[in-house]
């Protein structure tokens, strides 16, 4: 707030308060003709409204309100840029409550949070809390049963693009993952895409044209093996999926051509900032436990 508004607000507020006091005193009494019935002058269907006096304590309620307003404006921000004697702000109040909740939460985690992972997955309370963190933060993409959807991996099976060890899952949750498959149409050409696709399909043991497969294998070794490995089993360093099983993250094997043509990308957002250290650990442990069963 610049100086002009700072003073404008202060003047308006203080003038108002003073005006209220004046109004209160000015309207507390009124002069009427001695024999007047003392009505408000309002009349409906021949019924006139008496101007009956209010009880005195009603006046005191107004006075108390004005005193309260003065005290409030002294203690809290209200007069322009003046911050108030209590130095209160929404952010500080939020932070104080947030810290209180965090402290209480960490206190309730204390009994299990430092357990080694093998014990942690067997702790019912830890897993219940993990499942709730999952429901609130992860289920939106991965499904409430964690079995994923097109483009969002199933977390209950043993197929992991970025590794299924606890530490690897923890890293995935904390820092997120960015899976990119580059478009290869310019390099392979239309015919090449068909050949490579045939080879990839043959990896998950489906019958394909032998000529296409042989050509495809050459091109696969040139362009794809760097990430997916010469055996096509993928590499969890890059999040390159295993192409030899029949699990297709982006739908069915029907989309292989499109994937090679146009490339693919998948993004798992980082959660270290959204959750905190302890909650990231709990939800990662919960996800880890899902594939262990």
């Amino acid at each position, binding site marked *: 707030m610049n100086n002009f508004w700072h003073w404008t607000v202060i003047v308006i507020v203080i003038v108002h308060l003073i005006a209220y006091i004046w109004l209160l005193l000015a309207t507390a*009494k009124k002069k009427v003709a*001695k024999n007047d019935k003392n009505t408000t002058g309002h009349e409906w269907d021949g019924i006139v409204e008496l101007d009956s006096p*209010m009880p005195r304590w*009603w006046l005191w309620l107004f006075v108390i309100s004005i005193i309260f307003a003065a005290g409030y404006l002294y203690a809290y921000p209200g007069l322009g840029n003046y911050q108030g004697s209590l130095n209160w702000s929404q952010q500080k109040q939020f932070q104080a409550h947030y810290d209180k909740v965090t402290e209480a939460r960490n206190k309730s985690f204390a009994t299990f949070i430092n357990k080694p992972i093998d014990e942690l997955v067997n702790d019912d309370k830890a897993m219940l809390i993990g499942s709730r963190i999952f*429901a609130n933060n992860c*289920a939106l993409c*991965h*499904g*409430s*049963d964690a079995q994923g959807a097109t483009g969002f991996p199933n977390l209950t099976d043993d197929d992991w693009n970025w590794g299924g060890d606890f530490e690897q899952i923890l890293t995935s949750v904390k820092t997120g993952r960015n899976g990119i498959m580059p478009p290869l149409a310019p390099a392979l050409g239309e015919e090449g895409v068909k050949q490579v696709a045939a080879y990839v399909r043959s990896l998950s043991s489906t019958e394909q044209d032998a000529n296409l497969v042989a050509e495809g294998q050459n091109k696969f070794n040139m362009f794809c093996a760097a990430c997916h490995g010469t055996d096509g089993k993928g590499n969890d360093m890059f999040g390159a999926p295993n192409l030899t099983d029949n699990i297709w993250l982006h739908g069915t094997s029907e989309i292989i051509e499109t994937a090679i043509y146009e490339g693919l990308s998948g993004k798992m957002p980082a959660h270290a900032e959204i959750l905190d250290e302890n909650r990231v650990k709990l939800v990662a442990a919960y996800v880890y436990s899902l594939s262990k069963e």
Partner: protein
Amino acid sequence: MSTQERETIELNLYQAHKKIYPREVKGRFQFKRKLAVVVLLGLFYLVPWLQMGGEQAILFDLPNRRFHILGLILWPQDFIFLALLLIIAAFSLFFFTALAGRLWCGYACPQTVWTEVFIWMEQLTEGGRNQRMKLDQAPWTWNKFRKKTSKQILWVTFALWTGFTFVGFFTPIRELANHIWIWQLGPWEMFWLFFYSFATYGNAGFLREQVCLYMCPYARFQSAMFDKDSLIISYDEQRGEPRMRGKKRRTENNPGDCIDCTLCVQVCPTGIDIRDGLQYECIACAACIDACDEVMEKSGMPKGLIRYTTEHSLSGKPSRILRPRVILYALVLFGLITGFVTAFMMRSPISINVLHDRNTFYRMVDSNTIENVYTLKIMNKGRETAQYQLSASGLPELSVVTDVDSDMLQAEPGQLISVPIKIRAPKKIANQRIHNILLSVMSGQHKNSEEVKYFGYKK
């Protein structure tokens, strides 16, 4: 214009409170009022002590969010019943007002009932109306101090007991009594105990009729439910006027029945003169009826110069009890009560909530089957641990699948469980974009169902 008319006076629009000293009065209506006080306050002070099956019979357990009412448990999900109950209470008020005027104010309103008790204590310690007026005028003496102190002790004790009982509806009263005994009250118990005590003390000891005159909304809008056939307390002007007393009365030719003894004014707890006609300040306590009847009896005139009557019968026309508004209020009230009782009897101890997963409409299980994923929340509102079975209907060959062990579909009383479920269907059958299906949760003879959306296989 005469000089008198031009003369002005200054009016203070905020009036200092003039204390009202209602005179004590006996009579048939005052007996009924005392009976109402005893019964209503008796209920208030005794009910929290009732036990049923080892727990407090009526307890509004806010921290655990459950209301225990005579063996029934009500949950926040049953809040609709409270809303209905309040609507029923409002319509009863309308119905009785249209039929019999301000019965509520005179006989049942907590403000009146507690004020009655406080005034009774005032009489006990300070004496009747005249003695109280004299005492307040008198300078401070030991006698005045003694009387005022005993009154305050009675008031404060009674107010504290009221606050204690009030809190006892929300926290088990026997434990509360122990906590007070060892002086270990929780901060909220302490706050409400003293707040409610203070409110009782202030309202019944000092504010009294001012609550009715300045604060009560009902006092302001009750006239909307009145008509000329509603029961009111009224002075019979035709019979009473011209009022006169003493010597004048004996010499005058044709005096009215009112002997202008002003007893009806002295007994009035809101400080009005009923002879001025129907006023919104009148709380229909009937004290003036009893006072006037006694006077009429002593003067050898027929009773009922002030009586329960209607505007129609005062003006000599016939009064009708059954009017359209009474019938309408009664019908609405009857409908509401029937609805309330039926809904209450039919309420299920299984509360369910089904949320469809938001990330995907349907998922392929294999080349012929699809599934929709939901989060199912079940709350056990019953008193025993329950086991649940799930089923889906609305399409042929639907099946409900859960990944969790069957013991996860079990809930303790009051427990809320949340399980991911899948409903599977052949894609040839679920071939529309959206189907409406019914998911049912059963436990023993109880069942609750919810209609849910099922996204089908349609390219």
